[in-house]
């Protein structure tokens, strides 16, 4: 145990913990990478995830200790592993060799952590950057060297992140959120510790970046702090309509970042380069959400048996004859498509003669999802007793209030 007044001993202790953890992470890495090469396209997701998390975790620890070489090298390794984890590339001998070389160098750096920043690792960094660049699809080339500002709805920038990490965070159908926690109300008042919150988030997604707004806290002379803003840039498969329930935080402080991976990449025509303002999440109710190109003209699309017709900001979904457990998956896809393209959606139930609980639940949850994103959704022409059924199921109340309904997420259909 270090003495309380001995600075150098203190250094050693924190560093020793980091080195011990890192060695543990790196312990089986060589064998894991060899297994990955053997498995090639038939990868064990847990194995890849383990190696990926090792790089992610070492990056975080090194950043904490200002070990820049270790941080940069593990970040590059993480970028490549992300592509493997996401099945964008198959780990062949050449890729695995590069990774092995990188991890090997990482271990050397960690073993001499105090001198690690004096070592020249430019060759390793360039090798991994070059590999990443080569393996990236054309439209994403250059993104690893580009920085994107992530701002709050009021325009205040919170994070500066490299575009590739953002593109990767959005992969695989993941959502990217800028979450505004208040440590006092959202964490302390919920009888949780900040560590609980972070662990819960890391278990169902990836924290891309995070930080506390230190200046908002005040000093010792101020009244005891009643607000500690903690911003988290978070990538997860958890859908917008349930994330606020999952993390017990008000929906207006969770901003979904609808970034377009194509416009995040580097080679943008002049005038289209994304700026901080256009990447700010929109306030609910504002129509600032970037609209997919072509959404303004009339368009038609079908998802299974469900037909969509779009014009301007409005899309009409023809639900077909039955809205039941057998058809809700198509309808859900159609609703998600409409949500991403337009401000207002009408679900046309004219021809619908059959609607069951699953269908009703999907419509309820869709309505909540639309409301949470500041968009409108309504039903039209419900024939027969469907209108009455919908009302009894609480649909009109949900539609009016936007939210006062039991949790029935869009994905539950």
């Amino acid at each position, binding site marked *: 145990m270090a003495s309380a007044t001995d600075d150098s001993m203190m250094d050693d202790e*924190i560093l020793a913990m980091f080195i011990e953890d890192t060695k543990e992470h790196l312990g089986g890495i060589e064998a894991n990478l060899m297994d990955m090469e053997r498995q090639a396209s038939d990868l064990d997701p847990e194995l890849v995830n383990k190696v990926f998390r090792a790089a992610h975790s070492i990056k975080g620890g090194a950043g904490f200790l*200002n070990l820049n070489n270790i941080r940069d090298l593990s970040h590059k390794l993480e970028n490549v592993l992300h592509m493997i984890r996401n099945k964008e590339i198959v780990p062949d001998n050449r890729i695995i060799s590069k990774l092995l070389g990188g991890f090997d160098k990482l271990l050397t750096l960690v073993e001499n952590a105090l001198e690690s920043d004096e070592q020249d690792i430019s060759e390793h960094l360039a090798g991994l950057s070059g590999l990443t660049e080569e393996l990236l699809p054309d439209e994403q080339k250059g993104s690893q060297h580009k920085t994107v500002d992530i701002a709050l709805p009021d325009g205040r920038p919170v994070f500066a992140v490299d575009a590739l990490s953002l593109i990767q965070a959005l992969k695989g159908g993941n959502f990217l959120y800028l979450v505004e926690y208040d440590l006092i109300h959202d964490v302390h008042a919920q009888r949780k510790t900040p560590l609980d919150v*972070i662990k819960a988030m890391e278990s169902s997604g990836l*924290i891309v970046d995070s930080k506390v707004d230190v200046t908002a806290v*005040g000093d010792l002379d101020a009244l005891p*702090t009643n607000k500690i803003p903690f911003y988290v840039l978070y990538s997860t498969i958890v859908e917008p309509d349930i994330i606020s329930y999952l993390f017990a935080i008000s929906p207006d402080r969770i901003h979904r970042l609808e970034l377009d991976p194509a416009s995040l990449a580097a080679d943008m025509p002049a005038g289209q380069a994304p700026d901080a303002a256009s990447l700010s999440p929109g306030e609910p109710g504002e129509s600032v959400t970037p609209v997919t190109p072509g959404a303004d003209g009339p368009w038609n699309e079908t998802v299974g048996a469900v037909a969509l017709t779009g014009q301007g900001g409005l899309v009409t979904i023809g639900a077909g004859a039955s809205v039941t457990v057998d058809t809700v998956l198509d309808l859900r896809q159609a609703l998600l498509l409409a949500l991403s393209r337009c401000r207002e959606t009408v679900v046309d139930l004219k021809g619908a003669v059959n609607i069951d609980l699953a269908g009703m639940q999907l419509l309820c949850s869709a309505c909540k999802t639309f409301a949470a994103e500041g968009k409108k959704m309504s039903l039209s022409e419900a024939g027969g007793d469907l209108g009455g059924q919908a009302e009894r199921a609480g649909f009109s109340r949900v539609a009016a209030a936007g939210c006062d309904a039991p949790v029935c997420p869009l994905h539950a259909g």
Partner: protein
Amino acid sequence: MSQVDAFDDKVVIRPGRDIVASAVDELRAEFVAILDKGAAGLVVDMAGVAMIDSVGIGLLIAAHNSLAKKNAALELRNVSADIQSLFRTMRLEKHFSIAK
């Protein structure tokens, strides 16, 4: 009551217990008293601190902000692995000096 030792230009305070809501009022008063005496730097020895909650983090940040106004720095020592990982995720290491 925390153990407090003064060195040349720094004061080392050792709370020796968790920095949580129930302890924060008393700690705040101790911090204020130390700063009022004109200490140029404050070291919080975290030995014996197994847990810190949101209110405790607020206290440390407030101490940092008070010290920063006087061009002084807050330093933390003997931080447990869990608390380190917490500070790391919150990027607080850019504000507090944790390793020397």
